[in-house]
């Protein structure tokens, strides 16, 4: 499962539209979530709608939060996206196999089995999150909170059973629109002090930065459209504890 998490305060002003870039990501099987950070009410109406639009195009969710809430929000969005993706896949499976539209329609004992499978998948599905950080001048006072949120997210990723990787980009760079700070890693230590020596510049090439992240997914995982989520195979897993047998009708 692939996710991009964009942390920005809005106001992209160079290159391709970030909404278009997010739609492209979604098309390639990457869900885009957006955290809009404000501390002094600096997100205008324009910034707010840009943030919402990016997430909508990217099949994800967006939240506008203060730096204090950033860690929790980033956690929540990442988790909810995993859960949501699995739910979709499972619901589809339920429709095909059992002719019901969702978990709600199942009687509690069967529901218990399906939820157990979903929880297992949530914990074990491989997960890759590319964090794309807006480091334009207006973000400077917020970068400490951003670093903290990244560290916090990586702690939770590390605790998952399934393979979990994160990579960090920031934009703009000195020459290029977007810089890879930390390649895919599953360890928390790698995220030491990320942006310590950054020189902040004025432009905000959010769209090009998203494209760069998509490119990175493609480079590192080949064709990433391959399905990670296989509810069918999981639902039919053999009965190990004798309780699952009731489920596969």
């Amino acid at each position: 499962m692939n996710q991009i998490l964009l942390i920005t305060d809005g106001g992209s002003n160079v290159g391709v539209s970030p909404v278009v870039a997010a739609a492209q990501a979604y098309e390639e099987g990457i869900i885009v979530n957006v955290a809009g950070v404000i501390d002094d009410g600096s997100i205008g109406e324009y910034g707010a709608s840009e943030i919402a639009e990016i997430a909508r195009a990217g099949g994800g969710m967006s939240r506008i939060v203060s730096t204090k809430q950033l860690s929790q929000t980033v956690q929540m969005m990442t988790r909810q996206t995993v859960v949501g993706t699995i739910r979709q896949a499972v619901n589809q499976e339920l429709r095909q196999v059992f002719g019901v539209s969702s978990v709600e329609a199942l009687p509690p004992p069967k529901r218990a089995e399906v939820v157990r499978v979903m929880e297992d998948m949530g914990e074990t599905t491989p997960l890759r999150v590319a964090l794309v950080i807006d480091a334009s001048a207006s973000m400077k006072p917020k970068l400490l909170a951003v670093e903290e949120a990244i560290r916090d997210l990586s702690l939770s990723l590390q605790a998952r059973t399934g393979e979990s990787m994160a990579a960090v980009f920031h934009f703009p760079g000195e020459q290029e629109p977007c810089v890879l700070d930390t390649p895919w890693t599953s360890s928390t230590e790698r995220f030491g002090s990320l942006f310590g020596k950054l020189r902040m510049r004025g432009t905000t090439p959010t769209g090009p930065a998203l494209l760069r992240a998509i490119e990175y997914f493609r480079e590192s995982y080949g064709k990433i459209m391959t399905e990670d989520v296989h509810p069918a195979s999981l639902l039919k897993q053999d009965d190990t504890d004798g309780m699952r047998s009731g489920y596969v009708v």
Partner: protein
Amino acid sequence: MATSSEKQLSPGTILTGKWNGRKYKLERLLGVGANGQVYLATYGRAACAIKLGKDVSDLQAEANILASLDHREKKQPFLLDVDDAMLSGNQVPFYVMQYVPGTAVRTYLRKHGTEWFGVIGYRLLRRLSELHEAGWVFGDIKNDNILVSDYGRIALVDYGGMTASGRGIRQFTEIYDRGYWSAGSRTADPAYDWFSTAVLWIHALDEKRLLYLTRTLLPQNRDPGELLGLVKSHPSLKPLSGWFERALHGRFESTQEAAESWREAVHAASGAKSPSAPRVPGWMAGVFALSLLLCISLMAIWLFS
């Protein structure tokens, strides 16, 4: 996200299970959390607690955990029923569990005195030790989730954070979280609960300073040493600072050892307070003063009569 706008159901509302057909009468709201509302209810004449969820899968996941806990513990079951009810046209999932009487730790201590925290702490560690031995980690230890009833008896509620050992903690509360304090991972192990338990006691006895610390400390300075600093400068916690140091750094062999070490520390602390003269409780001192007064006045009557 928790929304307080969530409608409360009025007492007397009847929930009829769609699948099992049982009828429950809601008596009053017990609590509202991030995942739903909990009501005191009656089934026939028996009291029970009902959690009405917002999300079927989340609620079912919690029910699953309770079910497997019941399965392993072989005591009287805690989870009693899982079903859906129709409420004003909506299907609402719920589960029924045993009603746990009691109040949250901090409220209890405020009402009955701080001196109860030793016993309560010991019981909590014993309960955790049972869970840990069965391969579970409670995860979301916090003030609201530990209910204390008469004579310091405790029960855990809200098993939404309970996690099989070795997996990622399912639900936690920031200031109780080991990861938040840069004191270790979010992988479920007994030490995760020891850490939260240590924070619980700081929270229960010294909330002001704990919250002030979390508000003012920069993220990169969060460290178990800061918590230990609070312990060492608090009169009731200070005598147990050895225990806190081990709990915050995960330095026990087992939860059983953590419990024993707690018990010993609490004993030593209460003994140390008044090594020679036994303390005279306030009311007794009052009676003593009164009888002295009585004595003197009697003497006066005798002398001057």
